[in-house]
């Protein structure tokens, strides 16, 4: 059967993608299920010029966007609060005599020399990355994974997520700031 083949070939991949983007196992399972159900129901719309995989990923991405459009209303208030708390710059920087934003001593980037001559596994990187992304707001996580997993154009992401380009760059930077410290704690020092 069609659906068994899909599950066999693309099940784990679609699930990983959904889990990475949303950070929730239950949600990722639901999204996978809805994606495959929709695919079965719309099989006649599938055009042979794209691959089945690409087609399924596109359906999944639409499901994710739908989910957040819906969720976003409910979540908005909470999210704004979280952003202010987690991502104020004074988390990392403080004013000194010479500069208004200098690294706080306890936030100084550490020494990574040990790590740089080890062979670091891409799969290991992803599993730590997934943990670390759990600490950033949902919407930011989605913006970030769209860029680096789905390799969407920045311009496109801004449109889809309804954010301005300058907000987009700041979000990317904030996620990386948070990621770097989290990776330093959970990966480099393993």
């Amino acid at each position, binding site marked *: *059967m*069609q659906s*068994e083949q899909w599950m066999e070939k693309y099940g784990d991949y679609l699930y990983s993608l959904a889990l990475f983007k949303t950070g929730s196992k239950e949600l990722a*399972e639901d999204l996978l299920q809805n994606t495959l159900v929709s695919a079965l129901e719309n099989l006649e719309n599938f055009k042979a010029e794209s691959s089945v995989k690409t087609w399924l990923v596109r359906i999944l991405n639409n499901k994710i966007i739908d989910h957040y459009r819906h969720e976003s209303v409910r979540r908005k208030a909470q999210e704004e609060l979280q952003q202010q708390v987690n991502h104020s710059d004074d988390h990392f920087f403080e004013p000194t005599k010479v500069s208004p934003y200098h690294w706080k001593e306890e936030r100084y*980037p550490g020494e*990574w020399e040990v790590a740089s001559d080890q062979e670091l596994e891409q799969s290991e990187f992803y599993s730590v990355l997934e943990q670390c992304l759990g600490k950033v707001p949902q919407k930011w996580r989605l913006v970030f994974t769209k860029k680096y997993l789905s390799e969407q154009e920045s311009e496109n992401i801004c449109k889809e997520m309804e954010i301005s380009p300058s907000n987009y760059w700041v979000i990317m*930077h904030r996620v990386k*700031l948070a990621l770097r410290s989290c990776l330093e704690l959970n990966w480099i020092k393993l």
Partner: protein
Amino acid sequence: MKLILNCKEASYLSSIRDMHSLSIGEKLQLWIHLKVCPPCRRFANHMQVINRFLQRGSQSFSKLAPFQLSQESRGRITRLLKEIEQKKS
């Protein structure tokens, strides 16, 4: 154009430079800052490491599929899909 960036500005340039090419002015500002600021120099190196992993992006992710669906959920979803298929045909 001011020549001296603060650490917040310098770290911003370090983290977006893999996605967005910096202007000559920005490159110069960052270069000067990194010359005199050890923590930002480290930060910039770390960004290179992280960006390298991130840039391998979707292809390696698609090959690895780093997370596996539990047997239970796999079974549940497969059964549901079969039912739908049978109804359709």
